[in-house]
């Protein structure tokens, strides 16, 4: 059966802003699907309000709607586009839930839209816990004993039957939001109530605990001819009890014998058939009792997922792409395996390496939240590494994380270290430290539940560390010893630390013995067939498989694991750079370690190296590929901080020179430059010690913005209003910072409006691409502030000054590519806050707002083209307003006040476009998940909200001002609270939109009013930009 010819137009739903549990993997999946389906000639309409995605680029779909993923907006799009079918399995839980809603309310039937990929009944059967259990029992599969409860009375009964610990899982939530494991009765009631609230259908499943059992996931695909294949098994190193998104996982499974694996495979196949997922991928989770092998089915996701993205990267089998093709009628045996070309996609990948995934967390940004891990996912990103052994793969993954989670563990006493064997982000490091202290595998197994096979592997690593340490001078090592050590994954840096040497010396000793990595190929077939896809990873084996290049190569460094402050925006920029350089005829080489992304799709760059973004690993690739250029400016801080060392090592850096980057980042140099250019800066100073900070602060005057000298995403950044507040910052925040960095003190500009500018410069000429006015006042991190483009409140004179200053600065720095400048306007005065000569996180937003592919332009400039060559003569002048709003993950961090501040905490963003700025804001807010009401009650707490109250009343809302008498009673439809009261947290958990700043309150009220006065329509991005 080839592609269905009765379908012409398909509607695809994205997953919205990046959030915990639903991240860049859906951009990867969606982008793959869009490319594959359009190649077949289908017309595609896409809805996704997330501008930072590749999938929402105007040339990937026929009509792209940056509109909120709500039933109302999707209905508008359906009415306008009249698609034949809706493919709901590519946009995560958001898309799946939305498709179900539209099915239930009759929209799909009304407009004659067919669900393809998964039918409503199959989705419901897979997702509804009671139906799922029943289905499993029907085919003889066991599930944990459990009961679906709808209220606290039923929950009491379940507690009596199953006892503690008990697992509580809310129905239909994302990343297990609102669930958890209760060890005590108090915990039980707290989690049950929270779960009932966060479940859209107000039900939770209470289950017997399978804590500590081994955990496996199978990625399964099925086609319409009922052929089923398993793409890979993923084994969780962290046993049951830690959400798989928060677990260290490996592929393939390591500790299952063939008998056990095949039994699980049989079960998975029976399950996908029983649930009735007709085509596409599903993820099925199993728990295995390590004492007797008893296997239980935990859950199934009838859609592509984070794990399927991981499985695709781990095996080379593009699950989302194939799923999309199966959904429109192809059979697996009709589709070729891209990698081998001659064999079909109807097979099961077999691999000859080990893949390790390690999640990355951001608890340091949420003081107050306990960093213990459970069934609710809280990691913000992940890394993957490939090695020819578990040890190599694991050590590569650890260094890909770019966070020194080892820090300080050696200083802990045994009891403190023992505490860290409970699930937490540093647990694996605590295990390693325990092994160094001679703690046995049995003890660690008892404390962690981690399978002994992994513990033995780690013990062997720790044993090797001791041997390396004892082996004395590495200068005496033979090539064989070097190979053995490197094959275990030890970095030059680690060897240097163990032998008291320095990494540069280690590198040259190693190379003098002729020991350097070779690059192997990910080929889906363990080398049985020739691979045509240059998807490589390093290993210390003998044979290198990299083909000689035919054209000059350019290396593009990716951005590593997603984290708060460095997210999918940078992946977006690097992917655009790849495309631009490819258009110029270069062979593009991508280096990255993040499995969730489009950049690590083997289809993106001409060559893909799945490698850690460390100096050693990147330089190895540079030495192997001998590129004519290396691009570091598009992947955020991760590649940027390699600019200096790579440049010194002789790598040909393209774009803005490293010296210009230093000049912008070095405070004194930048201060001098601003002075020369006549740019006003807020008064500031650098303090080397806490004492000096107090003295200098006294001279500068309060309030002050204080932060450590290195800064990403506003880490440890605070506004202090008095000496005592500074004192408390020094004792509570600064004290815990690694390395006791210098402190930067700047006069804080109160009530100032912040401005973000993105500018393109070719060294001779500079052009402003976009000026964004922040909605929240200075003091809220620019990454967490909503913004509007073009600005709405700046005078023409001020705008001219901003443009002139930016151009001057770009030329003075010698920028060749992108420059992002942040300004503040206070009482009509313009201050420059900082300048970053690299792609900023606003690049995709601005690109979509003005219709300029900024990252592509930047890459072309880096390759030597001028603005004239690009045909860019004057700044773009969009006739519409674009608003960016952010998604904040407060819901996942119990006990944290949902307040904005100088520390960035948003995980993702949404975009709204409209001819009216207020309506653009309305769309962006809804897109970010703020369900702004059109009727009902709004509570306003805080002073100066009279105008807001007036607007809301005019829009038809009931407004109650001041803290309500009955704060524990029913929640309103909107809460505006400027006083940081405890109401905020309750409202947040109750799903009520919350607004915490006066500026946002004003915009929100105006947006609701504007929306109430018009009949909202939807317009595709392509139309706005034409």
């Amino acid at each position, binding site marked *: 059966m080839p592609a269905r010819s009765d379908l012409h137009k398909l509607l695809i739903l994205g997953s919205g802003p990046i959030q915990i549990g639903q991240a860049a993997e859906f951009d990867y999946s969606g982008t793959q699907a869009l490319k594959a389906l359009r190649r077949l000639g289908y017309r595609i309409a896409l809805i996704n309000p997330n501008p930072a995605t590749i999938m929402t680029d105007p040339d990937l779909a026929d009509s792209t709607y940056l509109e909120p993923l709500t039933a109302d907006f999707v209905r508008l799009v359906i009415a306008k586009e009249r698609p034949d079918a809706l493919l709901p399995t590519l946009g995560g839980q958001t898309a799946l839930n939305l498709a179900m809603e539209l099915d239930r309310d009759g929209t799909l039937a009304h407009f004659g839209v067919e669900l393809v990929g998964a039918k409503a009944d199959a989705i419901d059967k897979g997702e509804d816990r009671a139906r799922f259990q029943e289905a499993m029992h029907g085919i003889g599969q066991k599930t944990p004993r459990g009961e679906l409860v709808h209220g606290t009375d039923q929950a009491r009964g379940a507690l009596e039957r199953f006892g503690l610990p008990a697992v509580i899982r809310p129905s239909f939530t994302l990343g297990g939001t609102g669930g958890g494991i209760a060890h005590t009765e108090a915990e039980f009631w707290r989690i049950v109530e929270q779960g009932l609230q966060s479940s859209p259908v107000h039900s939770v499943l209470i289950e017997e605990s399978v804590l500590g059992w081994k955990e496996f996931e199978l990625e399964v695909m099925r086609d319409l001819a009922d052929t089923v294949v398993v793409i890979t098994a993923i084994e969780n190193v962290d046993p049951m009890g830690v959400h798989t998104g928060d677990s260290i996982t490996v592929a*393939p499974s390591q*500790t299952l014998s063939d008998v056990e694996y*095949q039994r699980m495979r*049989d079960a998975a196949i029976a399950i996908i058939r029983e649930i009735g997922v007709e085509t596409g991928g599903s993820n099925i989770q199993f728990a295995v009792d390590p004492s007797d092998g008893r296997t239980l089915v935990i859950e199934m996701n009838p859609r592509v997922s984070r794990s399927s993205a991981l499985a695709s990267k781990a095996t080379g089998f593009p699950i989302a792409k194939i799923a999309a093709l199966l959904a429109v009628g192809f059979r697996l045996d009709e589709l070729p395996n891209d990698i081998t070309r001659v064999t079909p996609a109807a097979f099961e990948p077999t691999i000859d390496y080990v893949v390790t995934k390690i999640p990355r967390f951001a608890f340091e940004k949420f003081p107050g939240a306990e960093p213990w891990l459970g069934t609710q996912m809280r990691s913000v990103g992940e890394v993957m590494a490939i090695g*020819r052994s578990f040890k190599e793969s694991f050590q590569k993954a650890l260094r890909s994380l770019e966070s020194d989670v080892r820090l300080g563990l050696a200083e802990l006493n045994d009891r403190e270290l023992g505490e860290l064997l409970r699930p937490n982000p540093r647990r694996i490091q605590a295990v390693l430290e325990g092994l160094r202290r001679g703690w046995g595998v049995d003890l660690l197994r008892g404390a962690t539940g981690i399978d002994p096979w992994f513990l033995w592997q780690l013990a062997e690593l720790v044993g090797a560390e001791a041997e390396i340490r004892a082996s004395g001078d590495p200068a005496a090592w033979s090539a064989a010893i070097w190979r053995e050590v490197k094959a275990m994954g030890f970095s030059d840096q680690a060897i240097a630390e163990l032998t008291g040497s320095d990494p540069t010396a280690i590198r040259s000793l190693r190379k003098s013995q002729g020991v350097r990595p070779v690059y192997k190929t990910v080929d889906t077939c*363990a080398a*049985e067939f020739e691979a045509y896809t240059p998807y490589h990873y390093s290993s210390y084996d003998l044979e290198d498989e990299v083909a000689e290049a035919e054209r000059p190569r350019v290396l593009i460094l990716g951005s590593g694991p997603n984290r708060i402050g460095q997210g999918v925006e940078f992946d977006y920029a690097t992917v655009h750079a790849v495309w631009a350089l490819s258009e110029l005829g270069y062979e593009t080489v991508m280096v990255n370690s993040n499995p969730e992304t489009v950049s690590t799709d083997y289809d993106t760059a001409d060559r893909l190296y799945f490698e850690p973004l460390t100096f050693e690993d990147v330089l190895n690739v540079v030495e192997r590929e001998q590129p004519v250029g290396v691009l570091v400016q598009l992947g955020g801080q991760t590649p940027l901080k390699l600019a200096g060392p790579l440049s010194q090592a002789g790598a040909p850096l393209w774009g803005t020179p490293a010296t210009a980057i230093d000049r912008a980042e070095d405070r004194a140099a930048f201060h001098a430059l601003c002075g020369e250019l006549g740019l006003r800066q807020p008064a500031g100073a650098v303090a080397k010690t806490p004492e000096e900070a107090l003295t200098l602060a006294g001279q500068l005057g309060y309030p002050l913005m204080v932060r450590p000298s290195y800064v990403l995403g506003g880490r440890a950044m605070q506004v202090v209003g008095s000496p005592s507040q500074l004192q408390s910052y020094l004792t509570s925040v600064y004290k815990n910072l690694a390395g006791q960095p210098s402190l930067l003190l700047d006069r804080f500009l109160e009530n100032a409006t912040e401005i973000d500018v993105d500018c393109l410069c070719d060294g001779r000429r500079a052009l402003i691409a976009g000026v964004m006015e922040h909605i929240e006042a200075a003091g809220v991190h620019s990454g967490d502030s909503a913004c509007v483009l073009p600005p709405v409140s700046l005078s023409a004179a001020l705008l001219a000054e901003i443009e002139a200053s930016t151009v001057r600065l770009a030329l003075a720095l010698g920028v060749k590519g992108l420059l992002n400048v942040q300004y503040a306007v206070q009482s009509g005065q313009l201050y420059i806050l900082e300048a970053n000569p690299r792609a900023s996180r606003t690049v995709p937003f601005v690109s979509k707002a003005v219709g300029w592919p900024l990252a592509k332009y930047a890459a072309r400039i880096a390759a030597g083209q001028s603005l004239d060559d690009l045909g860019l003569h004057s700044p773009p002048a969009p006739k519409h307003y674009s608003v960016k709003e952010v998604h904040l993950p407060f819901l996942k961090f119990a006990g944290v006040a949902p307040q904005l501040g100088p520390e960035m905490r948003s995980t993702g963003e949404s975009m709204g476009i409209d001819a009216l700025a207020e309506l653009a804001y309305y769309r962006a807010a809804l897109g970010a998940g703020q369900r702004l009401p059109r009727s009902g009650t709004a509570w306003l707490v805080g002073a100066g909200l009279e105008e807001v109250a007036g607007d809301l009343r005019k829009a038809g809302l009931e407004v109650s001002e001041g803290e309500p008498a009955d704060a524990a009673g029913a929640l309103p439809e909107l809460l505006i609270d400027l006083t940081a009261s405890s109401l905020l947290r309750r409202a947040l958990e109750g799903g009520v939109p919350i607004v915490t700043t006066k500026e946002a309150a004003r915009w929100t009220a105006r947006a609701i009013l504007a929306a109430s006065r018009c009949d909202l329509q939807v317009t595709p991005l392509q139309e706005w930009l034409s």
Partner: protein
Amino acid sequence: MLGRERALLVLEDGTVYRGYAFGHRGETVGEVVFNTSMTGYQEIMTDPSYYGQIVCMTYPHIGNYGVAIYDMESNRPYVQGMIAREFSEHYSNQRAQQSIEELMRDHGIVGISGIDTRALVRRLRSGGVLKGVILHRSVIHPDDPLGDFDPEEEQACVLAALRHPDIDGRDLTPEVTSPLPHAFPTLHRGKRVVLIDFGIKHTIIERLAEVGIEPIVVPAQTSPSQIMALQPHGLFLSNGPGDPAVPRYAHETAWKLLGLLPTFGICLGHQILGLAVGGRTFKMKFGHRGANQPVKNLLTGRIEITAQNHGYAVDLESIPGQQFRATHLNLNDGTLEGMVHARYPVFSVQYHPEASPGPHDSRYLFDRFVEEIDAFDGATGLPVARAKSLI
């Protein structure tokens, strides 16, 4: 960890891989093949079809889950040697009783680890199967196991590999077949099937018993009359090692019994059927060995993921008179994976529906065999008459 006993793998074409000694300390020579299954090393090692072969596992970690008595495919390992990137010193699995190294030491299986197994596979893929030698350093230098081999020692291995007889042209079934006929203990009575043991895997017998068959295993050289004397309801031709074209007695037995009994052949048994009716087999470049081979069932259109282990294949075109037609094809290279006789209830597959190791997608073939037996019971006396004449 750092510094282990050295070992060599030397191929007949002179390629030398330097690694570490594993398993029984010694020297071995055989045909080097690779298997891409990520699990099931124990089943592979104890599968008699690997007799005479040194198996390189492409998955880099072997031994992780130890060795379980329940997972033996025969009474001992039959591989001539084992190659892996890394053998796990420690294993973890509640079903296991010993480590892979213990199994290898108990049965004298020589292994090598630490070599670039992927390079080896690519070598075999492009150049075809080669003979090779594994040599442990302690065999020739018991006092200095950690040292390097010298070039003459490596050269001696090349010669040993070259001198070793090819599998092509050899009948290896006598080395692995049961010495005496025996019944498999089962509660089933009635559907008696004679299993000609060319090196049968235990799981095949189990699968047959599971579908209600009473299996009687007979040695490879059992004559047709001896077989018919057992009054069977069906005939099964097993898997096994070696060149299928050599054991003429087996072709003859299959030919004489053709049409008398519902017959099912697996792997070597499939090839013997093809040869029995006048067809030819050919040696493949590097064979199919793994658990992910896609096979299309031409009767249903469905794809089965199959376990395979064969270096020879039947050339369907060579079978005179279209006596057999294809039922299964390999999707990777289009080779014949299954066939059925045009007139008789005789069918066979090149792959391993019993799996072990591998996917269970094709277990239905055992049910089909039982259906053929049941249908045949009510058939006319013609075959029975022919059977009498044989006795």
